[in-house]
């Protein structure tokens, strides 16, 4: 029984660790395509973690969360994001506010802060939850860092996606937390709207420039 408990913990930690690694790698990426692949990997790992927690806690809600994550964040959203990048030719469009090295150093600092803030409070409660929480908080903070260091709207959305993965990771690790499915669906709605927003933005920019150049061309010819 003890061995099973340790195995449970270490597999949960392993999955959370892989998620953290992906979130950290996101900081170093300059190309949108690679960023999308990374959040896709994050979503796959997250759904695996949700399935595992569902099995351990015996909760159907967590299975549902896993399935939703797998379908929407694992496949649908990345496909939509890739479409947008291809359609508007955004492959090389990522501008960073600061050098990648610097943002990675800040990222390490954030992980340190997350661990320091969460871990010492573990007196009395289940420690597994706390370690998971520390990792989830790191993912959340790294996602926010990605959002602040990128200028491009689409990479901000990707940062938000990563933040959201961290939130869902925290939620599935909470013992017996109600509403996990509802909360993750509510977050997804927000995300879907963000993606639509980017799409509208790009569409508008595209057509506006087309429109303007057309008018200018007509004007130059003297109508």
């Amino acid at each position, binding site marked *: 029984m003890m061995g099973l408990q340790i195995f449970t913990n270490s597999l949960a930690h392993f999955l959370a660790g892989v998620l953290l690694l992906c979130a950290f790698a996101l900081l170093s990426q300059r190309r949108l395509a690679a960023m999308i692949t990374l959040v896709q990997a994050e979503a796959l790992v997250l759904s695996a973690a949700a399935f595992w927690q569902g099995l351990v806690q015996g909760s159907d809600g967590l299975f549902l969360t896993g399935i939703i994550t797998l379908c929407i964040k694992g496949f649908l959203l990345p496909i939509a994001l890739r479409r947008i990048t291809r359609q508007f030719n955004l492959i090389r469009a990522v501008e960073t506010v600061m050098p990648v090295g610097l943002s990675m150093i800040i990222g390490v600092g954030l992980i340190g802060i997350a661990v320091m*803030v*969460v871990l*010492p*409070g573990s007196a*009395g*409660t*289940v420690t597994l*939850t706390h370690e998971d*929480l520390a990792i*989830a*908080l790191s993912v*959340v903070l790294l996602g*926010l860092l990605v*959002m602040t260091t990128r200028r491009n*709207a689409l990479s*901000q959305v990707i940062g*938000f996606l990563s*933040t*959201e993965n*961290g*939130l869902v990771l*925290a*939620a599935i690790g*909470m*013992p*017996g*937390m*109600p*509403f996990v499915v*509802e*909360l993750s669906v*509510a*977050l997804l*709605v*927000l995300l879907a*709207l*963000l993606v639509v*927003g980017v799409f*509208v*933005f790009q569409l*508008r920019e595209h057509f*506006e420039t087309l429109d303007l150049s057309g008018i200018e061309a007509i004007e130059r010819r003297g109508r």
Partner: protein
Amino acid sequence: MSVTAIAVLLPFLAAIGLGFAGSPLQGALLNLVVCSLVFVLTVLVFLAPGAGFLHGLLQADPLGMIFGALSGFVALTTAISNIDFVRGEIEHMSARRWRVYHAMCQVMLGASLLGLYADNIGLLWAAVEVATVAATLGVSLPRSASALEAAWKYFILGGVGIALALFGTMVLYLAAQPAVGPGLSAMSFSVLATHATQLDGRLLTLAFVFLLFGYGTKAALVPLHGWLPDAYAEGPAPLTTMLSGLLLNVALIAVLRFAHLMQANFSAGGGAVRPGPFLLSLGLASLLLTAFSLWGRRDARRFFGFSSIEHTGIAAFAFGIGGAAAIFAGLLHMLLHTLIKSALFQALTRAAASRGRASPGNFAFSHLRGMLATSKPLAWMLGACVFALTGLPPSGLFSSEFLIVSQTIQRQPLLSLPLGIGLVVCAIAIIRLIGPLIFNPPPPAAVPVKAGAGICTVGVHLLLVLVLAFAMPLGLVRMLSSIAGALQ
């Protein structure tokens, strides 16, 4: 089903209907009908509280009831003036967008009531999330580049705030584990409040920081205020009124409730940090930043957006001082500010409409100056609203600000100087507007216009402010004091 549940569900159901059918004017009328029904329901909640719906998820406490009724009232008067707004702007948006607009008004109302009546931290979060999505859609409706930009800014900042608030919610759930155990009760406000002393203090502090910054974004506390002036200036005018009248209060009351948990835990030696300094610093920062930002604004709605930041800051400051009297003053300040600000936005919308169109570009002070030449009743109402906002006597806000200042001198004497300076500078920045706005010669294209009967809503708001500030009914005083006593 309880009255509370009907009051929350009705706007959402109406939103579905409004979103799919009807001409713009029909939509505006239906919007008005639903808002008046909801207002009646929010008043009925006082008579029949209790009766928890969905295992007690939805259970209005006195604080929620008072602000629920206020939200219902503001939504009703906004819906009345919305009819004139729709008449003036009808050609400038397609029928489909008008449907979305009215649906979003209802969703914002429903979500605000849900946030106020919810006895569950998860449900509160969901309400704020829904309200954010609705407000974003609403602000983006004019489809101009600046409106889209404002909506995007709101969405990104709001999204980050929502993410932080959700994390805080989960950590709070974890902090409740030792006292309450797993399950739904660990997310209930009333259960958390009764067990506040046994919560895990460290985790509670961590949760509070996230919740403060998360909901603080929605309440537009500095430094998380960036979205507010843009969203106010670019969205459709009545929607701005709903934003300032409803959503700010929901977020601020959420912050107040969480701060109370911290304070109770701290007082009992549970290991949490005192929440006062957090609220005091954010509140004071909001007030002082506004004192600088109010100068040199050209757009009226942006200007009064900054003034909203000032007043949520003052309320947060009052909550930070601590003690029943200060919390009473903060709640009174929120009540009065909501009434005055929504009246002001209604008057401003009418003023802009009398000068052509109430569209986002038409709220410049230079465009609105000299209202007296356009319409006397409108000019006096507008002047009265602007004056009421300064907080000088006999404006209603004077009573709450006086209470807050006297409490500050008593409990935090060092902070009374910056508070006083901030209040005075803001008052001067606002009062210097009255002259140009009312008496200056109007722009050449302005023609006299007859003010419609709809202007009465502004008068009713101002009258209510005077009653609340200087002759508050005894029942309400008792209710507010007992709320403040319970939350100190």
